[in-house]
């Protein structure tokens, strides 16, 4: 960012500065507590209200807590007529296939971009990153008629292919930065010691990139999992995914059922948070990539 040399931190003056900074910081503590309170409320309140709503049987205004509890919403949600299980299966199949495809097409490109300098690299980056800014919806609308002709509409493969449009750029983006921080020197050593390609990948490359790869895969899974309009379009309304079942309940439908389906829909995101939680509080910005789910 900036190439200006940093001022030499001599131990004496530095200490003096931090001491001088202290009383000031104490003055603005109210700002700190206001910020923390807003963060806590804006994260906890949605979760609590979803849970309360999904287990509420009767909840008259202006009661803050439901008057009568019940499992009615959950009973309906797990019933076949709600199509939640069917759509959950489809969502999982599509997201897993999208992740697998993104992995297959994205890994070599990420390695090329992360570790090699070559002519036309910027143009390649430009093209690969375009779907981050230019909406995939427009491309999906254009390709719809082609997919009809190829028999790809209303199929898991067809929907996964369209989900690949927003997923591939992010997979490549995350993995190329992983590869940029990874030195292939060890691979060279392993090869001179007689390891074949598969063994080099299995015992040298994979352990070094595994945590970054996990993040990239989780991220790709969630991008596909969260897709709504592209699925509606290519799924032709026949292939139903979880957000498509949730959607009609969110407007005028039963709020308790909406809350319980929302809780199922958010489950993978919660699992990702648990899996990555160890690095979350430590000033790591690994989650930044998840921003565009």
């Amino acid at each position, binding site marked *: 960012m900036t190439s200006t040399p940093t001022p030499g931190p001599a131990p004496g003056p530095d200490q003096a500065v931090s001491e001088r900074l202290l009383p*000031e*910081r104490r003055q603005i503590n109210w700002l700190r507590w206001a910020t923390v309170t807003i963060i806590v409320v804006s994260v906890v309140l949605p979760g609590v209200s979803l849970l309360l709503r999904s287990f509420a049987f009767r909840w008259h205004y202006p009661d803050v807590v439901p008057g009568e509890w019940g499992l009615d919403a959950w009973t309906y949600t797990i019933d076949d007529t709600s199509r939640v299980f069917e759509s959950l299966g489809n969502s999982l199949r599509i997201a897993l296939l999208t992740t697998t495809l993104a992995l297959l*097409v994205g890994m070599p490109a990420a390695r090329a971009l992360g570790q090699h300098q070559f002519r036309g690299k910027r143009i390649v980056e430009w093209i690969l990153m375009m779907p981050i*800014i230019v909406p995939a919806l427009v491309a999906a*609308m254009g390709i719809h008629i082609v997919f009809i002709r190829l028999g790809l509409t209303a199929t898991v493969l067809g929907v996964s292919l369209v989900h690949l449009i927003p997923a591939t750029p992010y997979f490549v983006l995350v993995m190329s930065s992983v590869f940029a921080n990874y030195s292939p020197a060890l691979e060279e050593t392993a090869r001179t010691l007689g390891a074949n390609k598969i063994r080099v990948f299995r015992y040298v490359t994979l352990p070094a990139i595994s945590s970054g790869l996990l993040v990239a895969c989780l991220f790709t899974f969630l991008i596909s999992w969260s897709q709504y309009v592209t699925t509606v379009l290519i799924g032709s309304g026949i292939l139903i995914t979880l957000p498509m079942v949730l959607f009609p309940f969110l407007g005028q439908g039963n709020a308790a059922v909406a809350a319980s389906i929302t809780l199922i829909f958010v489950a993978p995101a919660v699992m990702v948070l648990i899996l990555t939680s160890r690095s979350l509080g430590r000033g790591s910005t690994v989650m930044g990539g998840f*921003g565009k789910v």
Partner: protein
Amino acid sequence: MTLERRQTPLRERLKIPLMLTPAMAVILLLFLGGLVAGLMQSLGYFPAAGLTEFTFRHYVDAVTDRNFLVSLWTTFRIAFSVTLLSTVFAVGAALVLRQRFPGSRLATFLFQIPLPVPHLVAASAVILLFAQSGLLSRIGAALGLINAPGDFPAILYDNASIGVMLSFMWKEIPFVGLVVLAILQSVGPQYEELAQTLGATKRQRLVHVLLPLIMPGVVSTWIIVFAFTFANFEIPLLLGQSFPTTLPVQAFREFQRPELTSRPKGMAIAIVLAVITVLLLIAYRRLARYSRST
């Protein structure tokens, strides 16, 4: 190694292109192919509906539609407000969260929770909280602030699209905030301390030291947030007014009409949407290059 490389120059030369081919094929065929197919349809070439003559009629149709300019304005207004407000709140939150205090790690963890959560979940929570009979309205009634649901401000399906903006901001504030936190971490406290030893006040340090350091990195994030909000479909459909709606919703509505002949018009709106984001992309590259060179 040198010997080996000399023996297989072709293989070496083809290595990088081969590595790039699968990903490039996906983007070129599905994404750019889709855009080109869409462009053809918007220009009137749509054999499936019996249209084979190239014409700008559908663009004229789309742009002169009384809904178009209102929708364009609504879309811009929402995307601009979300981007601006998210940045303000994100910078504020990041400036607090970079400090170390009891509970700062937990707060940073909570701050990041919205990131992997789908937008539709955010919308669902906004409905439960901000509907006129929602949880906040009930809390307001319990505190004696309001008497009936009708006293709670109607911020869903409203003129100002506040519900839409809240849903977006719940996700975008942590996104921008994390970028700002990363920048602040990489910069370190030296500049600020230097400014302070030179006698800069707290306000001067913020305006003349911190913000100039943060902004170049944030600008590229703006464009991502703006483009995303601009092209999002489900949030304005769910929480916005039915009229005026946003461009993506309008494009999709035209496109999904039972009669195939209205598709080119929907496609024309979608292409306008794409062109606006391509212009943003060009601006993004310019700004990225600019911030790299400074």
